[in-house]
């Protein structure tokens, strides 16, 4: 393997890492926030706002329904407004984040909804204010699921980042497509896939370990 090719691998790896980590932080923070809002504004929850809840829920569904490759193109004006360009690694961060926010919001919402209503009742009975309940009951009790959902989301995002090659974002997926698929250099494609498998396994392993560490339910 020639040195320039190794450089390409390293560069692609770093691009993927940058794209995915920045987008993941944005998507997970925003998604979790939306999940909390969805959970607490539901009817009979802490801050019941059924109409707002419905509207938010529908919006999330719309974003989830749009295929990523279409979102990538549709969001071009937004990307240009936010990043100043529609090309490159940073430009890919916008569609990647927006693609993942609703996905992660739904996953986190499931964990939040799974918190035993008895715990919320106990917290109310002990004189907790509503935001205390979010802070001390809902979030900590749902944490194992929230972390598990992060693992799933980050891996899904690595997958989606391959398509971000379409906006010239680079990254491992882009390398595999351009060299391996389009130039029939099967070896490059396989090598990239091996790197991706290693990356995905590592994230999966780390995520499971962390989720186990914060789970005291057993």
């Amino acid at each position, binding site marked *: 393997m020639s040195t320039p090719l190794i450089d390409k691998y390293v560069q692609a790896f770093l691009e993927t890492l940058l794209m995915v980590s920045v987008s993941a932080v944005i998507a997970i923070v925003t998604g979790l926030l939306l999940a909390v809002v969805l959970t607490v504004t539901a009817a009979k929850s802490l801050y019941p706002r059924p109409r707002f809840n419905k509207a938010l829920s529908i919006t999330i569904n719309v974003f989830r329904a749009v295929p990523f490759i279409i979102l990538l193109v549709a969001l071009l004006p937004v990307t240009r407004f936010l990043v100043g360009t529609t090309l490159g690694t940073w430009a890919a961060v916008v569609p990647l984040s927006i693609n993942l926010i609703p996905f992660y919001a739904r996953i986190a919402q499931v964990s939040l909804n799974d918190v035993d209503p*008895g715990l919320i009742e*106990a917290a109310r*009975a002990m004189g*907790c204010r*509503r935001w205390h309940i979010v802070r001390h009951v809902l979030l900590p009790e749902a*944490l194992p699921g929230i972390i598990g959902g992060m693992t799933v989301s980050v891996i899904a995002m690595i997958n989606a980042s391959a398509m971000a090659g379409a906006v010239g974002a680079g990254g491992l997926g882009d390398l595999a497509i351009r060299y391996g698929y389009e130039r029939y250099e099967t070896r490059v494609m396989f090598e990239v896939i091996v790197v991706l498998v290693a990356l995905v396994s590592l994230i999966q392993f780390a995520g499971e370990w962390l989720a186990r560490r914060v789970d005291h339910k057993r």
Partner: protein
Amino acid sequence: MTEPLKGGPAQAVPHIVFDRVHKQYPGPGGPVTALEALSFEVRRGEVFGIIGRSGAGKSTLLRTINRLEDATGGRVSVDGVEVNHLDEDGLVALRRRIGMIFQHFNLLSAKTVRENVALPLKVAGVKPAEAAQRVDALLDLVGLRDKADTYPAKLSGGQKQRVGIARALVHQPEVLLCDEATSALDPETTQSILTLLSDINRSLGLTVVLITHDMAVIREVCDRVLVLDQGRLVELGEVWRVFGQPQADATRALLRPLQHDLPADLLAALVPDLQGRPGQAVISLACAGESLPHGLPLQALAALGPGATLLHGGLDRIRGHAQGRLLLSVPASGFHIDNARAALGADRLEILGYVHATD
């Protein structure tokens, strides 16, 4: 917001008052009534039991005291504070004076025992040093100091309920609400939790309001009992009185498992009269506490004659009153019910039937 009255002058203010409390839920076929015009009072420092079958409205009733449930009519007041009219601040203040424990304990799985007990103090802004001191004192009280850094999942049911009790007491409340607190526990653990609740009631002068479907729990710890049936109050009074002379059918039904009814084998052998043949009279001797507060003198039993035999039964002591029922047989010949009634009390003795002598 009205400040709660502590100590002295509060004695004059009624403690927990229900005044025509009404609760309706919207149901698929129109509103469902859960509580119907309930009026009663809980006295300071007593252990007050609420019993009823499942669906009788016990749980709803208990929750109107700290407004986990809103009453749809009437009013509930605690030490003169009207619970229905409180804003969020007032409600938080009220709930810090009313501890609550639950059937399924409701401990936070992500927090250790110590953090669980400390949470009510933490959210109230109590300084960590002071909070730690109070938490340790309570863990000593419930006997779980050595489990302070354990997570609830590693504890047994009884230990979890002890943590629940410690958490409920951490604000030094005046009232403790118990929601089927022993229903998920085995009999031995139930006993130890009930003993702990009695101790707390005595040593801290805390008012305890508990709901249960188990009459044995009421008998064990309560001073007074309210029987709830389909959202209505059907009976209210001292436990020994209600147990001794239940007035409502619902009460009698709930008491049945505890009563010493005639065993099936005896019932099968029972005949209405002996028609001149030799045999025994089977009599029931009830002890409802009031007329013989100190128990049943054996000497009085001597009035039944030399052949009297104990068949079945038992006496319980409820808050210093003997209560129960004994089934005896006496030789039918020479037994005079009137003599026995004169010795033992007229309304306590009843002839259930006769059995023929076996050869």
